[in-house]
């Protein structure tokens, strides 16, 4: 089966056609460098993204504290993680990079604050 990808590793955005069988790549067309191949391999195996969002904060100047995952997480878990994060409320003060949730949804990835507040 041929699957189409747009590589997002660099601004070039190569349009890559990957011929794939049972998750293994047979041939690649359109990538201008080796990083494009790594990207497609990862996308086929498990697409990963850094999730950035906000949590409610009490006692700060603003209502929302920006947060992100400290590592990329599987894309398919984003809806579950968003629901977990929606339940959280924390209190000021918070320092940038403070861990807000440890091991979110069993991923071994932490949710960290992206500013002090």
């Amino acid at each position, binding site marked *: 089966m041929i699957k189409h990808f747009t590589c*997002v590793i660099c601004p070039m955005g190569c349009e890559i056609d990957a011929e794939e069988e049972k998750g293994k790549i047979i041939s690649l067309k359109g990538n201008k460098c080796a990083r494009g191949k790594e990207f497609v391999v990862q996308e086929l195996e498990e697409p990963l993204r850094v999730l950035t969002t906000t949590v409610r904060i009490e006692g700060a100047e603003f209502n929302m504290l920006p947060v992100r995952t400290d590592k990329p997480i599987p894309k398919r878990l984003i809806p579950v993680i968003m629901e977990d994060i929606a339940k959280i409320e924390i209190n000021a003060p918070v320092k*940038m990079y403070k861990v807000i949730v440890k091991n979110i949804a069993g991923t071994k990835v932490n949710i960290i604050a992206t500013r002090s507040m």
Partner: protein
Amino acid sequence: MKADVTVIGGGPGGLVSALFAKRNGAKRVLILEREDELGGILKQCIHNGFGLELFKKDLTGPEYAERLIDDINKEGVDYMLDTMAIHLSKDRTITAVNSKHGVFNIDSKSIVLAMGCRERARGNLVIPGTRPAGIYTAGVAQRFINIDGYLPGKEVVILGSGDIGLIMARRLTLEGAKVKGVYEIMNHPGGLKRNIVQCLNDFDIPLYLSHTVMEIKGKDRVTGVIVAKVDGKMQPIKGTEEFVKCDTLLLSVGLIPENELSKEANIEISSNTKGPVMTETMETSVLGIFSSGNVSVVFDLVDYVAETGVIAGKNAAEFAKEKWENKKFINILPGKNVGILFPQMYSYRDDLVIFFRSKKWIEKTVDIEIQPLNMKMRRFYARPNEMIRIKILKDKLLSVKDDITVSIKEVKE
């Protein structure tokens, strides 16, 4: 009040300018910021993808801002918050107002403009229809969600595929709204490709190219919009109209440099960039007034904004130490296929960093040509939504007498 270098605006352009003015020996550096904290628009840009060029790290907007603010505090740069600059004169006097000092003047040896840009709104587009609630610019919606914690709507149509609109399509979806589609009048996306993939494709949000919003429906609240296909001249095609139900319309239709203060000081404004006409030192047409970031020209990347801040800050510090008057200039002109181009002049003082955009979407090999330097650089493509940056060292430019022209030429294969 007196200062060596005064910076108007505390966003990324202003923070970097102030930092580099201080690092280059200016004694009193003062930032005027109209909001209640520094950081500018970065504070609401909670997504990642910032800083890959400057910090070699993938940062979110707030992280980028906090790093700069920490440096500002460490280096002893002064700043006044909740302070609005209301007048700027040619002799480098700024009139400002805040609740502590009332209306006051600042005499500054040099000034850096860093007011940034603002979003084009409904009024700029002239979309017919009623005037219900539920029409926002993408940046306003971004502030509502990311700072104030309000969801602006549940069923959203986005007009324009600029980066903020794409980012907001993803953000609204994550927060539970339904984004019906992104409609773009041009036949190519306005934002960066990586945002099309990560913000639209990842969430199955459709992008309709060569489409526009013809009319807004609804009395108290938006109830829907009428969209239509457009032809090659961007005119709606009869018979293609379609009603899309929604309660919110977001506009992501471009940014305009905010130059009201610059005009008061009689600074010459370029019709090409909508920012001041500038030299490689980031100096405007008024002696001792420099400019950095999006008030000069709208950039794609905050790292480019920061780069102009480094140059503006350094030169503003040098001017504050020892006034200069430029004696020689040459123009830098857009040649074939080049639209936006910045800066517009070279004054033989510094290295030259040119930023420009292709007028045309060219999806094949091109040569960037810089004459009369006989410089040629090959690239795989040239797209209007991606600014091209080229640095030329001063040594190479000292012998150049004629105007510089930058062109993008398609390579015949």
